[in-house]
């Protein structure tokens, strides 16, 4: 379990993550939803210590994320960021190999090679593995970064809008893959999604954020309701049952 305690980050006196206290389970699929600017990315960056908080603590199982050695944390949790602002020209395989850094410090072991191969084929990248990432489409690049995160093989996998740039088929493929990581490998997947119907179909749990605060947190069926969604997004959507899942009709 990841315990987040009074986590706060402010920019120019404005708290964009405002004393958030939250427990993320040790397995299963948890989705964070909320309007643009709610603080979802900031929260994920704070939890994965790529951004320093102004206050608060993050404990992942037995590790104090904010003070433990970098490689220890990197073996416990991995993050796929919302945008990769890199201009470095490296190949898919080189990128995925970075996922093994916490284990190998760059000298890949046999186990590392296996993990890299697996991640590459999992993400459907075998034919692209020698391609430089800057010469790929947005969706292909997104998959390459996901493969790196998978190669990191951590219990907690945080993903900020992993469906960005993916077509419908790959988006659904991605959600299935994440679901199977949770079910078959017992990982805890925490992701930010904008499509609440994907969240509804695939998540065990949904956290709703608004203005830097967690305003909803519960099992999927309790959060995909008109009232709860109103609290998160400030707009009421009708919710329909369809083949055993709840769908919010936000198209009209």
């Amino acid at each position, binding site marked *: 379990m990841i315990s987040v305690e009074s986590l706060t980050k402010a920019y120019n006196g404005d708290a964009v993550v405002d004393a958030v206290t939250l427990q993320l389970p040790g397995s299963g699929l948890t989705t964070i939803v909320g309007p643009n600017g709610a603080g979802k990315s900031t929260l994920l*960056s704070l939890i*994965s*210590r*790529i*951004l320093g908080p102004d206050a608060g603590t993050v404990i992942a199982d037995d590790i104090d994320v904010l003070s433990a*050695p*970098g*490689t*220890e*944390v*990197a*073996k416990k949790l*991995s*993050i796929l*960021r919302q945008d*990769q*602002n*890199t*201009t*470095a*020209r*490296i*190949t898919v395989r*080189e990128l995925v190999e*970075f*996922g093994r*850094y*916490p284990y190998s*410090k*760059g000298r890949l072991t046999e186990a590392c090679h296996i993990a890299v191969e697996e991640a590459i084929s999992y993400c459907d990248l075998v034919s692209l593995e020698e391609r*430089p990432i800057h010469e790929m489409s947005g969706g292909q690049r997104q998959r390459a970064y996901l493969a790196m995160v998978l190669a*990191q093989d951590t219990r907690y996998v945080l993903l900020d809008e992993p469906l960005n740039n993916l077509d419908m088929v790959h988006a659904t493929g991605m959600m299935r893959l994440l679901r199977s990581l949770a079910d078959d490998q017992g990982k805890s997947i925490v992701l930010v999604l904008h499509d609440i119907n994907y969240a509804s179909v695939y998540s065990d749990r949904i956290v709703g954020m608004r203005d830097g605060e967690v305003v909803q947190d519960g099992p999927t069926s309790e959060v995909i309701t008109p009232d709860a969604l109103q609290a998160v997004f400030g707009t009421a959507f009708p919710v329909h049952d369809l083949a055993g899942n709840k769908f919010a009709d936000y198209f009209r």
Partner: protein
Amino acid sequence: MATVVLWAAVAAVVTLSVASMFVGVIDIDFGAVLTDPEARRVFALSRIPRTLALILAGTAMAVAGLILQSLMRNRFVAPTTAGTVDAAAVGLLVVIIISPGAPVMGKVMVALVFALVGTILFLAVVRRTRFREAILVPLIGLVLGGVYRAVAEFLAYRYNLVQSIDTWFNADFSGIIAGRYETLWLAGAAAAAAYVFANRLTAVGMGEAFATSIGVNYRATMAVGMGIAAFATAVVVVTVGAIPFLGLIVPNIVTILVGDSLRKVLPITALAGAVLVLGCDIAGRIVIFPYEIPVGTIVGTVGAGIFLFLVMRKGNRYAAA
């Protein structure tokens, strides 16, 4: 690709090293080295030291440039555009003024401290700049470097050392003999040490968040990289003088060919630095034989040509579509 380039660079270094040892005022052929003791003396005293000095200095400057480019995530940064060389020169002047008889290592250490402080100041200014456009970064470096250089020139003028500082900015290998170049091995060693950190330096080049997410200590790696680059630069400036353009051009040429993974790029950059300096120095010895043109002048000309060609060549990351 990378393997082909690597072996081509190895072959070029070997060929040019042999050529470098047989070009000079005194005509020596291969047979003479085996039979004539006088020829052997010239070899051991001058030709071999000069060739080694060229290889080591070329390697060190190119690798220093590569490291700075990766750390700063900017293709236009190099020891000569980040103020490193100028700051090292100020340091060297300060030792010479305060303690003229200081041993070479003492000079290197003081030059290193100045080079580090100068480069870190550059980094701090860049970090404080809001609009971090690619071209602004080296401009800041050039401006800061200009300030350091003005300080150096002022000091040199005050203490009658103007003549000596010229060669610090523009290397001269014609005076290299046994006993006068050996410190350069340290610069070569620093370049080799960088290979140990190749993966971490690449990760830092991918950005702070990326490095942190895989457990690479961003600040520590930054410090190590800066330290290696500044040390290599300081040694070269103190021993033979900086080679302008080298640290800028060589890494750019090599990364255009083989990408940005330092594991692949670093060895090739090291060799390519040696190739360019060896080639330019040999040319400098031949063009107005028996006189010499300083290697820096030729590197500047040839390097600028290659660089412009690569930048304007269609289909690369700088060229207009």
